[in-house]
């Protein structure tokens, strides 16, 4: 299967997605911001449409537009400090509205379906280079900001007292979320992209580990989900995004069941 160039490209991109998405996702989930991932994933469609309409890279278009939308979410927090849901609705309206307007105008001469559902056939070498560059920069930024991001998620006030510029880091983090989303679009697709950010983390949280352990388990589950989705989509000839989402739900259910059985056996042993 990996003798084909398109599968090699898809494999490289999948590996990068499976590392970057849970690294971003763990902070989003722990800050109760999972829906931000979903909103930005949908707004990325506008960036894709702009990229395709102007003859530029749709991945780059998605990255730039999603970064702007991520920054907009942070900016709107000042005006709606207690209504994150409302902010997401506003940004979603902007993103999806822009996408529908551009696509329906007929200026996009490409199949947008592959971006909605994900496709292993459409990953070009240019995409791969762009995805690799974004991934490396994002991972480096995450390593540099690691302790600050942990603290903003765990205890934002303590972070402020320690001198962390929370607002600035939040803006940088928005760009990192945009980066994770734009690299994932080709394989996973816009519609189920947020599941790649949140579900491996949700599964890892069941392991009862500390932060580092949870992060490592998130990456492990993400690799399992995405690689299984990639291989299955090749043999079953289905879109990888949908199947990857199904695998990630299945893995979560298996881990939950395993935990329940373990707790039951422990209780039985104690009685």
């Amino acid at each position, binding site marked *: 299967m990996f003798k084909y160039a398109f599968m090699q490209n898809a494999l490289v991109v999948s590996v990068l997605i499976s590392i970057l998405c849970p690294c971003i996702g763990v902070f989003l989930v722990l800050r109760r911001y999972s829906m931000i991932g979903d909103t930005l994933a949908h707004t990325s469609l506008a960036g894709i449409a702009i990229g395709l309409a102007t003859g530029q890279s749709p991945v780059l278009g998605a990255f730039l537009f999603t970064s702007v939308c991520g920054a907009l979410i942070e900016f709107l927090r000042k005006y709606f400090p207690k209504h994150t849901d409302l902010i997401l609705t506003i940004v979603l309206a902007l993103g999806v509205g822009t996408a529908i307007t551009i696509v329906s105008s007929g200026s996009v001469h490409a199949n947008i379906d592959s971006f909605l559902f994900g496709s292993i056939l459409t990953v070009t070498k240019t995409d791969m280079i762009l995805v690799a560059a974004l991934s490396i920069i994002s991972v480096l930024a995450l390593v540099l900001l690691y*302790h600050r991001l942990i603290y903003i998620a*765990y205890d934002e006030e303590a*972070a402020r007292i*320690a001198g962390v510029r929370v607002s600035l880091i939040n803006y940088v983090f928005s760009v990192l979320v945009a980066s994770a989303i734009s690299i994932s679009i080709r394989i996973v697709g816009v519609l189920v992209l947020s599941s790649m950010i949140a579900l491996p983390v949700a599964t890892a*949280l069941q392991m009862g580990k500390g932060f580092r352990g949870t992060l490592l388990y998130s990456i492990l589950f993400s690799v399992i989900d995405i690689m299984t989705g990639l291989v299955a989509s090749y043999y079953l000839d289905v879109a990888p995004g949908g199947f990857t989402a199904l695998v990630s739900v299945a893995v979560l259910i298996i881990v939950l069941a395993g935990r329940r059985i373990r707790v039951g056996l422990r209780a039985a042993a104690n009685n």
Partner: protein
Amino acid sequence: MIQAENLYFSYTGTKPYVLEGLNLTIRDGEYVSVVGENGCGKSTLIRLILKFLKPTRGSIVTTAARIGYVPQRSDSSGSGFPITVWEMLNSYRHLLHLRDRSVLEKSLELVGLTDAEDALMDTLSGGQNQKVHIARALMGRPELLILDEPSTGVDPESQREIYGLLKRLNTDQGITIVSVEHNLDAAIANSTQIYHLSGGHGHICTPQKYVEEYLGGKGTEEGHV
């Protein structure tokens, strides 16, 4: 150490004010307990000291370069946040740019929790959780330690240990302590000054005076902690 002059604060920017014309001086080395009814502005006052809030009018300044803060049971306690004691303290050490890892062990030793390094924060008792947050506040060698109801949700034995520790930090290391207290016994037993907030106004006095003026000279029913 802390100076408030004609301090007004309201969350809306207009009347009614939570704090109304406060004048307060807290000198180096004092242990001040801030007491008063629920909603009287105790936590608002410490949030103003910490600069989380800005005064509506007047000013509040602190000369302390290093401030330690112990929140009212961490926002994340019981939230399922997956972090161990060691990870929580070690990340904070990085935020403070402290290269020496031993500050982490020393602060845990000070609160008597060296065995809890690998425990998840979420599995700690109320007392242990509070001690870990005190250890975190102490890592930066604070001149001023601010606590928001340190004994809330803490068992009596741990309360005794926590107040004993605070007293030692104040008397032995000269750390200035400002603690919002709902525990009047602890405030009377440990503070050098008590700041009583009521109706947006404040009054500072010694614990002895406080007992005479506010409790009719009888102290509280439960005895001192």
